[in-house]
Every structure is written in C-alpha cells, then in structure tokens.
C-alpha cells in the first residue's frame, strides 16, 4: 500500500428495506474491495443518535428551590439565568465483531445480523435517529461508515396509565375520555369532555388542542426546560350554557399530525403527547378558566411484537 493510497473502499448496506420493528433483525452488509491490513479491531455498532434539549450554561437554583413563584424574594440567593440549546449524543446499543484474522480484514462482503432490542425507541425527527456504524481501527486512518434506518413502534401491551391533569382553574370538574389511549399519526383522535361546573359559569367556550412535550433528562449535562409545543386550537362548543349540577358532555375530534413523533423515552429526553381542554366562560369567574390535559400515546406501527 503506497503512502498516498486511499485504502480499500467501504460499502455499508442494510437489509431488508425498512422501516423495522423492535425485536426484528436487520442485516448489515459490509463490502470491501480489498484486504484491510493492520487491523486492531473491526466491529459493526448499532445505536441511535439522541437529540435533546439541555441548559448549556448557568444553573437552576431558584426554580428548584420552589421560589420561582415569588415576585419579591429578597431573602433568596442564586440565579436561573442561562439558555437552553439542543444537542445530539450517541447512544450505544450493541456491537457485532467482524472476523479479523492475523490483523487482516478480508476483501468481499461480510454480513452481520443485528437484532433490535424490544425496548427500541421509535425513530423521530425530534429525538431519535437509528444508525448502524462501522468501525475498523487499524494502523493508519481508521475506516468508518454509517447508515441510518427507521424504527417504527407498536403500542405497548401494558396500560399506559394516562390520567387527567389539572393545569389551571377551579371553576368546574373537567374529565377527558378518549376512545383509546394509542393513536397513529394522521388519525383523527376522538373523545369526550365532561364538564361539571362548581359555580354558574354561564355561556362558555370549550376548546381542544394537542400538546407535545419534550422532557429533558440528560445523563451528564444540566437538564433544560420542558419544551411544550401546542397544536392549533379547535373550538368544540361555543356559548354552551354551563350551570352547577348539570354535567355537560361534548364529543370532540382532532387530527393527530401526519408527521407526529411517537411517544418515547430515550436516554436523554422523553416525548409525550397530551389533549388539552380549556373551559373559558364568557364572564369573569373567581375560579378562572379551567385547563385540564390528558396524556395519550402515539405509535407508528400498526401491529407487531409489543414492547414491554
């Protein structure tokens, strides 16, 4: 091999064509057009690029001391100044060695089966990009290649334990029921809102919107704020008379975006979906407008091996 030779060309291909389900096996085919000599280790690695928000500098002292609600707090120290950024980290899942004999990786095609774990998080633009990476370490420039693929996830078997969560207001008891807990991107999510006013609310407007949250929980870096992305507002009832003692039930339907990311928990961040209902009386009420949300799941595979 000459001083300026580029070394053998590497070709990394994955099969069969995706998307892949958790527990399915894909084959990484490493093609080499010449022997690679002086190899110390050769492996194919499976893992995902985890994208997540974090606080790049500064600390969070006040918010975690529960003093963030005090406007005037001369007896507290510390700062919450700092800004959030988004970064990516590689999450290693498994390694498969390539056959190296006497420091030589032979020319030709090497096929390695890689089984996706049952807990594999689903691919999404905002959080997870699955990749197979080739690492050949040798004397001289290492050989590296990477190939991305897509993982789709079915809904889990176990009940997810989604529950109503009150965000604001004390004027009425609001409960949200969904036809089912797990939905596919592009589907129309259907459910019902039951409002039992505690006081006379009069004519009120009921609105529904979808909410996507990304909770930051990095292994090493400082966690960032939870990202909350609200979808468009859908009005399901306008000027509905709400009186105490009478429970009003309003059905609703709202579109899950076609490119919705699946609900998932990764190493550095978690993605969740919510339906957020607002009851807004036309006149002033001391309890304020009520805002309640309920979680639901987005899955990207219709069926298949269920994750635990």
């Amino acid at each position, binding site marked *: 091999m000459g001083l300026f030779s580029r070394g053998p060309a590497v070709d990394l291909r994955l099969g069969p064509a995706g998307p892949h389900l958790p527990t399915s096996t894909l084959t990484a085919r490493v093609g080499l057009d010449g022997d690679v000599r002086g190899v110390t280790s050769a492996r194919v690695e499976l893992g995902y690029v985890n994208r997540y928000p974090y606080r790049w500098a500064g600390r969070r002292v006040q918010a975690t001391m529960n003093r963030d609600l005090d406007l005037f707090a001369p007896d507290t*120290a510390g700062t919450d100044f700092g800004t959030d950024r988004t970064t990516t980290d590689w999450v290693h899942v498994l390694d498969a060695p390539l056959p190296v004999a006497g420091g030589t990786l032979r020319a030709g095609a090497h096929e390695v089966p890689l089984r996706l774990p049952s807990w594999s998080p689903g691919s999404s633009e905002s959080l997870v990009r699955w990749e197979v990476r080739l690492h050949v370490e040798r004397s001289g420039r290492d050989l590296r290649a990477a190939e991305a693929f897509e993982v789709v996830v079915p809904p889990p078997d176990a009940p997810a334990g989604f529950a109503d969560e009150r965000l604001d207001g004390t004027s009425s008891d609001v409960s949200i029921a969904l036809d089912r807990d797990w939905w596919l991107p592009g589907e129309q999510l259907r459910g019902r809102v039951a409002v039992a006013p505690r006081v006379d609310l009069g004519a009120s407007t009921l609105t529904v919107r979808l909410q996507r949250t990304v909770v930051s929980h990095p292994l090493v870096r400082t966690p960032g704020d939870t990202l909350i992305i609200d979808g468009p507002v859908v009005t399901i009832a306008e000027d509905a008379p709400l009186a105490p003692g009478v429970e009003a039930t309003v059905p609703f339907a709202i579109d899950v975006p076609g490119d919705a990311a699946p609900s998932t928990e990764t190493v*550095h961040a978690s993605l969740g979906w919510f339906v957020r209902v607002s009851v807004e009386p036309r006149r002033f009420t001391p309890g304020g407008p009520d805002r309640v949300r309920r979680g639901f799941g987005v899955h990207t595979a219709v069926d298949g091996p269920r994750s635990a």
Partner: protein
Amino acid sequence: MSTAEPSRPQRGSTAQERGSDANEHEIAFERASTWTQKLKAGANPRLVLSQADGYPPGIKQFLWFCLVLVYPAWLFVVVLGLVLAWPLQLLAKAGEAVLMLLFWPVRRHHFKHHPEEAAAWREKHGKTG
C-alpha cells in the same frame, strides 16, 4: 423464543429529580437566620463569583471580571435590600389592608349577591371574609 438482548441504557434525571444545584455560598445565604448573618453571607465575594459557575471556560473568566467590577454596586444593593426589604414588605401589606378596609362595603355587597363567588374566594384564600 427468548433471545438475549442488551439491557435498556439508563436514562438521565430531570431537573426536578436532581433537586437544587445551589452551591455552598447560596445555601449559606438561604440558611442565615439573622440579619447580620444574611449581610455577611450576601457580601461574601465568593457568592458573587459563584454566579458564573456552570459557564464554559473563557466566558466564565469574563463573567468573573464583570462581577469583580460590579462588586461595589452589589454590596450597596445587598445592604439596601436587607435594610429596606422588610419595611417595604410591611408597607405593601399595610397598603393591602387599607384597600381591603376601603373596599369592604363593595365586597360585602358583591358577595351577598354572588355567594358562590364568596365561597370560591374563601376556598382559594383559605380564610373567611
């Protein structure tokens, strides 16, 4: 079919799970119970410099430089804050009490005609009135 698979990588913890990352100087300031202790902890130059913790090298040294420059002003604010904080708070409370007294007939009239609002108000503030 049971297949050995790699265990799920451990996830990190959220800000709530980690708790406060206040440093020792801030904790000392929080725990100081008397005015003199507060004044001492607040005037500690290390507390001022620790405000640049968590910033990357370079930026941190620049922030230190800035914090050293503003230290005299910091001292002034600490003294002013501690001397005026409680009188100001008392003044605000007194102002609130005066307004409550002043508007008592209005509140009485309104709550008489809207008992549900009175109940909601009592529930919210945990008191009668």
